[in-house]
């Protein structure tokens, strides 16, 4: 029996997280009642015209750079014509022969084997709407019409389901890392179609392929690949010819089913969209976008562990959240204690809402002993409430740390005098008793004492008793 291998290419659609849609000013984010996030332009009303959102081009180019693509200096938009009720203009504005990005790749590691998977192209296009079927009939919801997408087309370099999975995981990591999408398969902001054919191992020819559409989780993608591979082998072994077609995967039955035969599929009659002008990216544009590309996540992780001396777990937590990592990075180079910065940021539930300079200032104030460790939380609360200068807030809230040893001396004496039991316990060898005394010192100074200094002072005084 011949041994077969898969030839797999993936087409991945990713929603870009721009504020507005690709051709109008409507919000691009998810949510809203049907047809409340659309306007005459994205609804394709007669007479309306598209205007390309420049942010979409920037985001797509950044994605391309992150995936090692060449970015075009000249690109253009084309119309893909087909009828469907969720497509108000009856054409989708997309890109045919001058995509924004080409010739990229992703390196993955599967079971210790390094593999480079080529990226043929990345182009920008608009999303269609959504059909809603109710008891009263069907309706079209245009909220998604005109949401910016990139389509990332891989070379047929993938051979196994595990490689496909590794490719998609790395793709998602990098796109999230570069900050242009959240790539969530559950919400549909990342979608994947699989093109698959089989061939005898050693053969270099490409055989009839099928396309599996509408896969909405990594698990299903892996299972669909295995199921479709098995089906194609069975068909081939049985001497039946495979047809080029679109199939869908049924996870319940773990099988793929034919949706339509591609030979009769649409002729999309692509042509350049006369309503839009070519996209020109100058050398300056390239340099500007290049400067926004972060180093790779694993490089960042290594830097945090080796250079900033963060515990591995802390470094990983930061790098898991690209926005947080980028914020941390922006502040890290200006602080004396990067580890303290990481701890402060991770202790906050919404670190992303605070600018990098503020994080840096808080960290340095703590590191210099000018405020104590409980002060940042209070300062952040005040900052969120009314903003302003951190230095001013420190004064307003009376958070300047007491370094006046005279005052501290007096307080320490008072506390020792007022707590004979704790003193006796300490003297009897219960070292933990000093914590009770410390608590009193902090209480009497309203938290303004430097804990380290206060502990030292108490120990000194107790030793003399």
């Amino acid at each position: 029996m011949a041994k077969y291998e898969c030839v797999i290419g993936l087409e991945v659609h990713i929603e870009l997280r721009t504020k507005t849609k690709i051709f109008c000013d409507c919000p691009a984010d998810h949510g809203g009642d049907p047809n409340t996030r659309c306007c005459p332009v994205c609804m394709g009303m007669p007479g309306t015209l598209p205007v390309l959102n420049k942010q979409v081009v920037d985001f797509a180019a950044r994605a391309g750079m992150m995936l090692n693509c060449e970015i075009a200096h000249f690109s253009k938009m084309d119309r893909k014509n087909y009828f469907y009720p969720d497509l108000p203009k009856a054409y989708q504005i997309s890109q045919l022969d001058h995509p924004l990005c080409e010739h990229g790749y992703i390196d993955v590691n599967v079971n210790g084997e390094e593999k480079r998977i080529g990226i043929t192209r990345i182009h920008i296009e608009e999303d269609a709407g959504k059909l809603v079927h109710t008891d009263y009939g069907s309706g079209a919801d245009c909220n998604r019409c005109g949401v910016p997408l990139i389509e990332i087309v891989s070379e047929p370099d993938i051979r196994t389901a595990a490689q496909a999975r590794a490719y998609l995981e790395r793709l998602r990591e990098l796109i999230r890392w570069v900050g242009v999408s959240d790539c969530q398969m559950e919400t549909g902001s990342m979608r994947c179609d699989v093109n698959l054919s089989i061939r005898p191992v050693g053969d270099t020819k490409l055989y009839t392929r099928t396309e599996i559409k509408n896969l909405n989780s990594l698990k299903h993608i892996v299972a669909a690949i295995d199921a479709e591979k098995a089906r194609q082998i069975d068909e081939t072994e049985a001497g039946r010819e495979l047809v080029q077609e679109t199939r869908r995967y049924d996870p319940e039955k773990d099988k793929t089913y034919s949706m339509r035969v591609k030979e009769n599929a649409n002729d999309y009659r692509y042509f350049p969209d006369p309503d839009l002008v070519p996209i020109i990216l100058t050398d300056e544009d390239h340099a500007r976008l290049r400067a926004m590309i972060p180093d790779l996540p694993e490089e960042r992780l290594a830097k945090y562990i080796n250079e900033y001396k963060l515990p591995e777990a802390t470094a990983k937590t930061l790098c898991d959240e690209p926005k947080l990592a980028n914020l941390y990075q922006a502040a890290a180079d200006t602080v004396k204690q990067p580890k303290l910065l990481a701890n402060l940021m991770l202790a906050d539930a919404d670190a992303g809402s605070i600018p990098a300079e503020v994080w840096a200032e808080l960290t340095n104030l703590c590191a210099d002993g000018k405020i104590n460790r409980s002060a940042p939380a209070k300062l952040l609360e005040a900052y969120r409430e009314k903003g302003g200068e951190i230095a001013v807030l420190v004064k307003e809230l009376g958070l300047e740390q007491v370094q006046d040893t005279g005052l501290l001396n007096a307080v320490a004496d008072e506390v020792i005098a007022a707590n004979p039991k704790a003193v006796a316990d300490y003297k009897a060898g219960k070292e933990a008793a000093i914590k009770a005394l410390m608590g009193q010192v902090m209480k009497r100074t309203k938290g303004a004492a430097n804990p380290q200094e206060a502990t030292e002072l108490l120990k000194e005084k107790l030793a003399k008793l």
Partner: protein
Amino acid sequence: MRYREMDVAALSELLQNKQVTAKELAADALQAIAETDGTVGAYLTVAEEEAYRQAEAADKMLADGTAGPLTGIPFAMKDNICTKGVRTTCASKMLEHWLPVYDACVTEQLKKAGAVMLGKTNMDEFAMGSSSENSALQLTRNPAAPDYVPGGSSGGSAAAVAANECAFAIGSDTGGSIRQPASFCGVVGMKPTYGTVSRYGLVAYASSFDQIGPLTKTVADNAKVLEAISCHDRRDSTSLPEFDTNYSALIGKDLSGMRIGLPKEYFGEGINADVAALVRNAAKALEGAGAKIEECSLPAVSYALPAYYVLCCAEASSNLARFDGIRYGYRAEGVEDLDRLYRKTRTEGFGREVRRRILLGNYVLSAGYYDAYYKKAQQARTLLIRAFKELFSQNDMLLAPVAPTPAYKIGEKSSDPMEMALGDICTVPVNLGGLPAISVPCGTVAQDGANLPVGFQLIGPAFSEAKLYQAAAAYESGV
């Protein structure tokens, strides 16, 4: 002279001098429509309430001292330009009852200027045609000779101006649709440089050709209207960012030194001898006014008609795909499945000519034919643009007939689409080049007891509108 017979400049002076109110002008114009439009058929919709509302606003502007040259002037709008709350039909069954939810840029500009819209004018369905006979809703007659067509596709706009049913009108020109009806009806029509008037709100026929422009009684009026509607609009990506809109600047200036070329291809076979003679007379008059007239040649013009029809139909097939019966407009009844709904809706909702052009456009874009037709036509377009450019290095402008013939009888050509298309031969090269061109009346041809108006056109390089108006006004003042 009655108000309705006056031009924009004269009416504006009366308004400024408080000799008449905008409301009175609107009433007179609406009266004129009531009296004559039963015969002419220029208007598809008369927006009386809207007109009085706008007249009231105009009178306020006149009282405030914020009035401009178009404040209070009654005008007509071609029915493929969106007017919020006033139905915009494109003379098609498909949009017969469609109410736009927004104003076109041009509509906004005219509202801002205080002009008073009387209603929407008839046209060939979706601007496809040259006689207005392709309207699915109404027949428009040539005011100069009721048995004759007014031209098209902006036939309603040209007829409304010629019949004194408005002081000026707005049309659109994709392959001659302003200039040719202007010529047939004896009014002035300008197709401006592509990108100087926003297309936002113009229901697209062929996006890379369509351009909105004015139809008026005089050249000076035309320049004033263009000044009001021309602007940069960020909602139209093909709207040009910066250009001079002082189109009246050169009117009245001496023509001496101006070089005007007569491209011989426009005077060849197929051009009616009477028309050619009238156009040559116009050239002589301009020579008399100081211009230097010289014959020249534009051989690339032979590519124009086929290239135009391939590209236009390709764009139209896609632009008109949205009329599918799902969200607005006509929807066929009695069908269950989607495919049949599309087919029946579009078969019933579109007229013959529109269906023909959609089919042609889909054909030239389909797999395997794209290179032979669409791509080739684009190359021909590039060649023609280059040839024009070269001619304009030696000439300030070109002078040519607008149409090979005067207006023809209603029904005479409507059965032969090929013959109808050949009538566009003089006008389409300008649209392929994105150039400005103005049609100016230059006499009449007597035929079967009717005196049929004829116009000549002046074609200039991009942004030469002021010069074209200068020459056109010089000719007009000499007549």
